[in-house]
């Protein structure tokens, strides 16, 4: 901690997620402190450079969605392998793993893209922000919305299958 601000607070300020009272305190301090003023300017500059580099890289190496999902699955697998065995429960799955498994389950019936699109619609309906975000917290609502979406387009049996499997895939947090 330096001048009353932690590294976490600096990063939150940069992301725009710092609490308004802390944000006002930090900004009034920056005006009066040459060192912190330099630090804030450096952080802004690095943030801009990293964002520009990320844009350039993402345009240079375009990946299709299935490749991204494969990599995501590999990363999750590695994380699991690193976890101490006593912490790992064979039945516990994250929401990301749950969506991957659901998609794999539905693909032979309705096609992978149909499953993906229906999941996106259900995820948008399940998050408060309207963004397609699925977490353990909104998993139950996501499954309920996915069941309705799929039942409308692909039939009630598909909806039943989602309900049946979805409830057992991820244990939602309270």
């Amino acid at each position, binding site marked *: 901690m330096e001048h009353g601000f932690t590294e976490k607070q600096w990063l939150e300020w940069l992301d725009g997620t710092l609490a308004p009272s802390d944000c006002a305190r930090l900004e009034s301090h920056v005006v009066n402190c040459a060192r912190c003023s330099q630090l804030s300017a450096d952080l802004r500059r690095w943030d801009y450079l990293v964002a520009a580099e990320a844009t350039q890289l993402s345009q240079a190496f375009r990946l299709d969605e299935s490749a991204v999902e494969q990599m995501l699955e590999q990363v999750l697998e590695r994380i699991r392998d690193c976890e101490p065995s006593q912490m790992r429960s064979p039945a516990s799955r994250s929401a990301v793993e749950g969506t991957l498994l659901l998609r*794999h389950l539905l693909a032979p*019936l309705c096609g992978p893209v149909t499953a993906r699109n229906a999941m996106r619609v259900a995820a948008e309906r399940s998050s408060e922000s309207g963004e397609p975000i699925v977490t353990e917290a909104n998993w139950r609502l996501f499954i309920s919305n996915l069941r309705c979406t799929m039942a409308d387009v692909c039939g009630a049996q598909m909806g039943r299958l989602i309900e049946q499997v979805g409830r057992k895939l991820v244990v939602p947090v309270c």
Partner: protein
Amino acid sequence: MLARLRPLHLWIVVAGLIGYALVGLLLRRSDPQFDPGRYMNLFGGVAVTLLYSVGAILSWRISRDHRPQSAMRIAWLLMMASSVAAAARFGYEAAGILAGWNNPLAHALLGLRQIPIVVSLVLLAASLAVMWFSFTSIGLGIKLRAADILIMVLIVLLVPPTIWARRQMADAQAALEFVRYLQFLSPLLLAIPAALAVVLYRISREMGGGQYAKVLRCLVAFLLIRLVALMVGTVPALDWLPLRIVMEAVSMSVSAIFVLALVYRCEMRRSASEMVLRYESDPAAELASLSEELKKLVR
């Protein structure tokens, strides 16, 4: 009994109808007095009536797999109504042939078949449009490619020459005037579902595989092939008896392809039901095997 219907049975029906047409060709070759029109329409009419009746029952069953008031339920109910109208048309035709009506000019009542034809085509177009609307709710069929639009334009372009050559059509000389007008509408009413078939084909491609895509591809084949068969039948330069018989056989066979699409849709429902039962009986083992499958795929 219909629950036991499998795709193989429908392929046998397609082969049987084509084989029947080939026998007709051989009979014509050995006996120049042989009437291929009556031969094709009598048996073919009965077969196609049965196929559309089966199609109506299956469409009704599929509609019950969707929530009341959902767009897809309405689409399948419209499909059922269209199949009923098509079955009525072919049944009426077959009955007319049995009664000795073979000339629309001499037998005015034969021309009345144009009513179920128009009703069936309008309902079919409405069904496909509602189906398309339902798929757009999950982002499928929203963006069409340039090639799709080009094919749709080509289909629309086929309409004016067909209307121009409508004198070749069965009821162009019908005794009842309104029947001639209804006949006039046929090429346009066939082109609209065929144009919608292009959209369904795009949706089937966008799906990226799966049983549902197979259902849509069979519907596409049904809609496009019968349009081509009608066009070939009206071009005066192609008025060659063997070709006419083959096209007649193709027209009849497409109704089996329509039923094939419905059978694939029923199979999809059956697969989902079987999976539900499996996951009900041993969820842990099923989920573990699903995880393993996914891992193998990723590696």
